[in-house]
């Protein structure tokens, strides 16, 4: 952690054992971000032991971030354990919280990677993470739960989505926990200009029991190869367009791999998401020899201190 002068004295009382209402270490990250403000924020309580489920849910609601993670002592076989909460519910797994958690476990000494590997325990089970590069600013890759194509008919698409859908490519429902309709857009220009009708999208995704819809288009740039936008107005009323979405990007990679159309080189590419919301998120995707999708990206630590609850 960078030196922070006298403020560190104020921020250090978590070290006092046995104190009542002990302040807990708290960090707020920007995940999939090359600089603060461009990615997806994540709250993290680094020592959550003693907090019950209701308190975790209340803290996540109060912080109002798309997700907050709580670190707990892991069971055997895992290096660290997290519970993931949105403001409204607990999630078994989510991509951006897991990438942020692996980064925190490494940089805050909560776990020690062995040969660059960590095992994360969360409600969805044990998930391997890979840590590489500078230990103070490590690169993180996390194996996403297997995505699968669901047998579902999209029915009638909202009009503005039907308009930009690439002819000849199916609208498919995929799931790796959350389920996303995947639509290939005819061009990145059209995708970036799209003005979504959230009411129509919410009606469609709710009627088809989907978390949301993710659109993608190939886009050639020095920094990325795919443009992505993800809408989930039926699932999260306050965040109708998600700034950067780990799960949806992993499913798009799984689909493109299945179709033999992965962009980039050697199964690796970078997706750009969030520009239409004033962000500039970047998700690094890789599909390995077993067909597993790994997601990663840069992480920025924005807020560091303590939380009193």
């Amino acid at each position: 952690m960078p030196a922070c002068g006298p403020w560190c004295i104020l921020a250090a009382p978590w070290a006092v054992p046995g104190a009542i209402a002990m302040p807990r270490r708290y960090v707020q990250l920007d995940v999939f971000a090359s600089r603060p403000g461009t990615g997806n924020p994540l709250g993290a309580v680094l020592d959550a032991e003693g907090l019950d489920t209701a308190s975790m849910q209340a803290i996540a609601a109060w912080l109002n971030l798309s997700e907050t993670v709580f670190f707990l002592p892991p069971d055997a076989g895992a290096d660290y354990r997290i519970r993931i909460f949105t403001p409204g519910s607990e999630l078994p797994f989510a991509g951006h919280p897991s990438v942020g958690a692996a980064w925190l476990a490494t940089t805050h000494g909560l776990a020690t990677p062995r040969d660059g590997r960590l095992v994360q325990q969360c409600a969805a089970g044990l998930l391997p993470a890979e840590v590489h590069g500078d230990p103070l600013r490590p690169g993180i890759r996390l194996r996403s739960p297997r995505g699968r194509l669901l047998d579902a008919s999209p029915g009638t698409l909202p009009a503005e989505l039907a308009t930009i859908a690439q002819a000849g490519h199916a609208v498919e429902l995929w799931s790796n926990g959350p389920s996303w309709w995947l639509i290939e857009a005819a061009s990145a220009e059209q995708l970036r200009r799209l003005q979504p009708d959230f009411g129509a999208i919410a009606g469609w995704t709710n009627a088809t029991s989907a978390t949301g819809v993710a659109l993608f288009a190939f886009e050639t740039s020095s920094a990325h190869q795919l443009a992505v936008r993800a809408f989930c107005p039926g699932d999260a009323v306050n965040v109708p367009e998600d700034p950067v979405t780990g799960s949806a990007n992993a499913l798009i990679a799984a689909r493109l791999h299945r179709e033999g159309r992965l962009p980039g080189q050697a199964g690796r590419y970078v997706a750009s998401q969030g520009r239409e919301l004033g962000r500039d998120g970047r998700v690094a995707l890789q599909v390995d020899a077993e067909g597993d999708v790994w997601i990663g990206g840069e992480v920025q630590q924005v807020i560091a201190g303590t939380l009193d609850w």
Partner: protein
Amino acid sequence: MSQRRYVQLDVFASRAGAGNPLAVVLDAEGLDDAQMQAIAKWTRLPETTFVLPPVSDDATHRIRIFSPRREVPFAGHPSVGTAHALLDAGLAVPRDGFLVQDGIAGKLPLKVSGEGSERTIAVRTPRARVQEIATPDDSRLRDALAGLQLGTLPPVLMDGGRRWWLAELANETELRNAQPNWNAIVELANATESMGLFVYARSDDPVYYYAVRAFVGAPAQFEDAASGAANATLAAWLAERGALPDLPGGFYRVSQGREVGHDAIIELSIDADGDVWSGGRAVAVVTGTLDWPG
């Protein structure tokens, strides 16, 4: 230097989670408007404030208040919460029991009472005016008030910087059980360039005198957990009608936010000049630093 002292507080609350959240960047010097707006968007809280050195001679600090979308000239809970944060950090010292903040709305005094967890801070709110007194069957109000058992005072549009429709309900039970008609409230807010509908009712509770609920119809649609400035317009309205409670200590308390999972207490008082003061306690939840490249 990009490490700035940062606090996230719960305002109008005596325990974390009960009030209205606020982010405060305690040393905001060097941040430009775009950076402040970007930070306020990133925190995802109703408001984020930035503390700067005062410009007037007798002010203790200058404050800028941003919602995730825009800069706000004045708001009650950010002013009160920022003052609490400044005192907690030892960055300001009350003079004769007062802090003075500079801001877009001008110079405003903040009255500091009590100490430690008992400390309350109240801000003198900009003068609120009666804009229009209406009847419950007014075509603009009818749908928003439909099904609610009203009290004796007529509905009124108050202007205290932001405009609110105030409506008295018959009793606290009626208020707690009220189901907002959101479509009608959004329409009312848009048609009258107001925030929406603020309902209030007398209570028999020993702690608070009124219970209130604030239904914001524009720019977003939500029920507010604790509204400092809206409650100040209610105090001005009660004063106008000679309906202010006659209570010892010169202030009354309001309960707000239970219906949205909070439990805020706001203190209101009116001074000899007829100015309304709105305030309460605050608890620091997150204390640390913010690292935002300059």
